[in-house]
């Protein structure tokens, strides 16, 4: 019926077929699925990482654990103050908890993957080195020696 109706209608330009629209959208979908990774945790500190030229990309994202350091975001500042704090997973932590954190991260991974585990330090550019030094010492004690100073490419 509809077909008849169309034929009988005005002889303007034919309708563009939208049959390939799903294909296009699926292509986009797959592109996003492949290139992105799941947002794992909400960042509660400001981590404006410094920029550098000699950066290397982190391989194997599943083997990377993140330590965020920086001043808490404004909405947390009433509770946690404005001094730089450490964030592990979804909560604020102290230096002493890092070792525990590394051990639990390590336990989640398979045995043969453990040597490749990397700790990425996302530290705000305005932080003082004192806290970073303490973290590095804690990481040494936890025997997590591969680290990556997260930086933006200049």
């Amino acid at each position, binding site marked *: 019926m509809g077909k008849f109706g169309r034929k009988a209608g005005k002889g303007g330009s034919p309708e563009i077929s*939208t049959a390939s*629209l799903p294909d296009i*959208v699926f292509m986009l979908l797959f592109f996003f699925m492949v290139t992105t990774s799941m947002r794992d945790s909400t960042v509660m500190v400001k981590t404006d990482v410094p920029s550098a030229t000699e950066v290397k990309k982190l391989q194997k994202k599943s083997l990377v654990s993140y330590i965020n350091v920086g001043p808490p975001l404004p909405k947390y500042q009433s509770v946690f103050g404005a001094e730089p704090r450490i964030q592990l997973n979804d909560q604020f932590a102290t230096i002493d908890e890092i070792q525990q954190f590394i051990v639990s991260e390590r336990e989640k991974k398979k045995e043969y993957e453990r040597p490749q585990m990397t700790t990425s330090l996302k530290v705000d550019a305005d932080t*003082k080195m*004192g806290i970073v030094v303490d973290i590095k010492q804690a990481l040494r004690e936890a025997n997590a020696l591969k*680290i*990556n100073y997260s930086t933006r490419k200049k």
Partner: protein
Amino acid sequence: MPRREAPEINGGSIADIAFMLLIFFIVATTMNVDSGIMRKLPELSDDPPEEIDQIKDRDVFDVRINYKNQLLVEGKSIDISRLREKAKEFIENPNNSDDLPQKEEIDVPFFGVYPVSKQVISLQNDRGTKYDIYIQVQNELTAAYNELRDEISKKQFHKPFDKLDEEEMKAVKKIYPMRISEAEPRRSTGGGS
């Protein structure tokens, strides 16, 4: 005209479903490519740290950053823009000068016996140093090594360092091993941390 038994399912809504999935993925995922400067921390051991005293003074490139973020290289205050060239000169010691690191003849694959300098870079920072400055210094030192490695790769293999295969890379790394030693920083002399 032959007709199918079951009526065809309308495919018009597939696009809507796919769009919904697409939007979900855009919202729930992040695109950031994580990159940074790779470093390996020294192992924690009960033994006293490696005979730093036995390393000759000329083999050590002393870099210090104080709490005012000023840079002191080999006892002289310099600007960070000159650190790279200074470090390169130190690592390579092109003129075999007496106050730059001595060289040891080592057998390196592809290169034969090659004089490899015994350089060590000692980086010391204060607890009050700004992280940004520290990273800039780390970056310059890494750049110095990378540039030297690149230069020698181009000379020997006619391609940049990161295009080499694994064996060649190992050989180049043997000639210019990255030795950055970080002493534990002193207590802040002011400024607070």
